[in-house]
């Protein structure tokens, strides 16, 4: 297969070529990237804030494709599950959409009484020259709630720039609330989006350790909690792609230190708890944490070993949004005895890939911003039995008859926390061990003699 000339440097094979990977580039014109746009990046980060109105300023499509597509749960209001758009028509494209935006915001705020409103600029807004900032200011003054523009015009960079725009928007909320009464053992959880209720699992662990969670940013997010986030003693940052920037901004402005964590897999999950206990340097807390980790692991380890027995030695490929998630997945798959043969991400940085390289075995293929053609070629070349990716990768795996596990934002099963590791193992097991793969036509050379055909003739003629 041909890797497009302009993309050669975004593919790396460990042990074969000296390490050099080009990343954080705009996708090449004409390659079918698995990436979305700046708007998508902003939207995914802010989406779980459930008591805010999220208004997409642009033509209807951009909003329609993001209506209730993610599993971000809320324990209360569910405004985030509605899709609002100014649905710009030709008239507004010619004469500007400011008055429509203004009227629309007023109508939405009057009807839903949100705690804040976010206005997302899409590509077209970037070229028709609406002064979104001014409209937001006017509405905010009139209605007395924060109305925050998110500068997410799709063409102005990559999904990562969208994360940044979202972080900038969040900084306009943070600092507005009162911080009295917050414990000295307090954290913000950054970069967990409460998919399938994951932040509830994590919050429960911290509560049991004696740590107060001030704000989930943005999982099960509430405007008032985010407004108090600057009162927390520590920021826990998951998913390096989306929230590092916010942690950095909060450090500069409020001096809050941060800790990189991941909640996937035993190893990383335990470390996410121990790290916090170490940071607060409290012996009691450390003891509680050790007990917690022990209890949790004991409860599920035997079951996990059963899965491991079946899965050991099988090969897997990983292609996910953020590189940090890829690290955890490599480790989690190891725990199940599986080998990672291909690993890649949409938005990793050079540093991330360096780390991945160190983590992976010889021969592993490492890719940045890949496309269906490449991915399918790599999974075939490596003969994997499992692919971990998002909704766009699933049909590639299935078409080739390979097991699949959804590790992106639409999943309905919690994969975070200790219990999440068990869910993950179960999902991997259910996919890899399914009997359906016996019917898949395999290319000639890889079908061992006496394969499926023979099985049949044996049962037919005993």
């Amino acid at each position, binding site marked *: 297969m041909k890797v497009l000339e302009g993309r050669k440097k975004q593919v790396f094979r460990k042990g074969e070529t000296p390490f050099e990977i080009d990343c954080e580039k705009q996708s090449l014109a*004409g390659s079918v990237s698995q990436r979305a746009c700046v708007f998508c990046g902003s939207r995914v980060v802010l989406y779980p804030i459930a008591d805010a109105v999220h208004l997409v300023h642009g033509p209807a499509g951009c909003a329609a494709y993001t209506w209730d597509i993610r599993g971000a749960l809320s324990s209360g209001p569910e405004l985030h599950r509605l899709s609002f758009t100014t649905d710009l028509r030709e008239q507004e494209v010619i004469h500007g959409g400011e008055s429509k935006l203004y009227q629309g915001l007023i109508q939405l705020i009057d009807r839903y009484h949100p705690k804040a409103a976010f206005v997302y600029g899409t590509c077209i807004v970037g070229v028709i020259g609406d002064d979104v900032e001014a409209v937001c200011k006017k509405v905010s003054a009139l209605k007395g709630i924060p109305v925050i523009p998110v500068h997410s015009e799709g063409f102005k960079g990559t999904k990562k720039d969208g994360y940044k725009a979202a972080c900038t928007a969040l900084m306009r909320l943070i600092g507005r609330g009162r911080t009295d009464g917050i414990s000295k053992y307090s954290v913000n959880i950054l970069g967990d989006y409460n998919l399938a209720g994951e932040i509830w699992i994590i919050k429960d662990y911290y509560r049991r350790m004696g740590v107060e969670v001030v704000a989930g940013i943005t999982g099960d997010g509430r405007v008032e909690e985010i407004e108090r986030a600057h009162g927390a003693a520590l920021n826990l940052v998951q998913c390096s792609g989306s929230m590092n920037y916010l942690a950095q901004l909060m450090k500069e402005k409020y001096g809050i230190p941060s800790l990189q964590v991941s909640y996937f897999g035993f190893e990383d999950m335990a470390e996410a708890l121990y790290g916090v206990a170490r940071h607060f340097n409290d012996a009691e807390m450390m003891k509680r944490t050790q007990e917690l980790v022990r209890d949790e692991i004991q409860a599920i380890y035997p079951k996990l070993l059963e899965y491991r027995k079946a899965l050991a030695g099988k090969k897997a490929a990983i292609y996910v949004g953020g590189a940090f998630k890829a690290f955890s997945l490599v480790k989690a798959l190891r725990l199940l005895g599986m080998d990672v043969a291909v690993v890649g991400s949409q938005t990793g940085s050079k540093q991330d890939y360096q780390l991945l390289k160190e983590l992976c075995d010889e021969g592993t293929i490492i890719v940045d911003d890949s496309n269906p053609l490449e991915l399918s070629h790599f999974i075939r070349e490596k003969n994997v039995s499992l692919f971990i990716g998002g909704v766009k990768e699933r049909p590639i795996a299935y078409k080739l008859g390979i097991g699949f596990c959804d590790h992106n934002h639409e999943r309905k099963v919690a994969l975070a926390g200790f219990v999440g590791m068990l869910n993950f193992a179960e999902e991997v097991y259910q996919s890899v061990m399914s009997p359906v793969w016996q019917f898949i036509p395999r290319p000639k050379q890889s079908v061992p003699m006496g394969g499926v055909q023979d099985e049949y003739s044996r049962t037919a003629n005993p």
Partner: protein
Amino acid sequence: MNIRELPTREVTINACKLCNPLGASLVFRGIEGAVPLLHGSQGCATYIRRYLISHFKEPIDIASSNFSESSTIFGGGPKLKQALKNVIDQYQPTFIGIATTCLSETIGDDLQLILDEFNREYRAPGKPLLVTVSTPSYQGSHIDGFHDTVRAVIEQVATGGPKKNMVSIFPGMVSAADLRLLKEVLTDFGLDFLVLPDYSETMDGGMWDTYQKIAPGGASVDKIRAAGRSKAVIQLGRTVRKQQNAAEYLKERFGVESYQLGLPVGIRETDRLMQTLAVITGNDIPQKYQEERGRLIDAYVDAHKYLFGKKAAIYGEPDLVLGIAIFLAEVGVVPVICATGARTGKLGDELRCLLPELEGEITVAEGIDFDDIRTLVERVQPDLLIGNSKGYPLSRQSGIPLIRVGFPIHDRIGGQRILHLGYRGTQHLFDQIVNELIRARQDRSPIGWSYM
């Protein structure tokens, strides 16, 4: 017929429509050896792929010219040319369908000019056929993108010549199963045919032993070329406007005998298609279909009491809404709400003309969103909702059962295999609808009969 006034809201809440390039991409995916290419930013292509994949559960590659900030200032020409080269390099397509997006339309890129340049510069052999269509989403919705693209393909590819024993049919935005049914009918009439688009295999195919850059199947370019030599052409969909109607173009340009029929849902609309094919071919309607029709009427009779006077709300693509409304009316169900996010301006007129007996009982709404549909539903309390899976929140909230039809079906498996058309498709819909009503009654009954 009550034509519903459009809402005075400035904001669309839970849109009941998608954008034009989605329709265009779907059409291009129904052409053999074709790759769709959207001229604009990356996001549009990725979102549209994701949305289509969630329905069809098939790999769907849509390339993008990937605008950068400077493309919006200096034009997207260089990016488009680079994208074409890369797509040709990687996919070796025989056809590239280029659709614009809101962005490239707004900055005013001239596709023809860019392609002329590309054609001058790109001299390598094996250059694919390039077809362009203008699909700004601020001017319509996905169904407009769909019809405009079929028409653009025909305008740019079809040629004339002596007539052949071939019929062309433009089915509109129907399911993969529907396309297979139409092809079966045409085959049974002993016809050579073009169905455009034909994504029955490309979007609902079998397993692959090696990855296919372009899914096999689709309408062949040779057939599309020959469309101007068809002995007759049929555009399905009564709300398709004249300027979007590819059959109309073939008639004006090449003098092909042209018909515009409704989607064949229900006895009456299916009869019209069958009779038309009989007239075109001079053959009788094959026995098989007479039998299917007989069974369908038999089922109508068996179940008529469960249906009479029931009310249904239908929403989605305008022609599917119309087809189902006509079918429901013939079994005694009143289609009290006929709603679409599209703006055809024709849905009300067609209903009035085809179902005069229901004058005053149907509320027709075009350009509507799900928030408005909910308001209407609360007002008339129908027994059934019929439409795509995006009506599920409404169904859940109101407790009114939802029969899933059309596009998208994101919460069930097999959306692409739902059969709506022909006697067989109608039978399938009919059984589902009757059983849903019986189920509701059975569940409500304190006795819980285990027989009908």
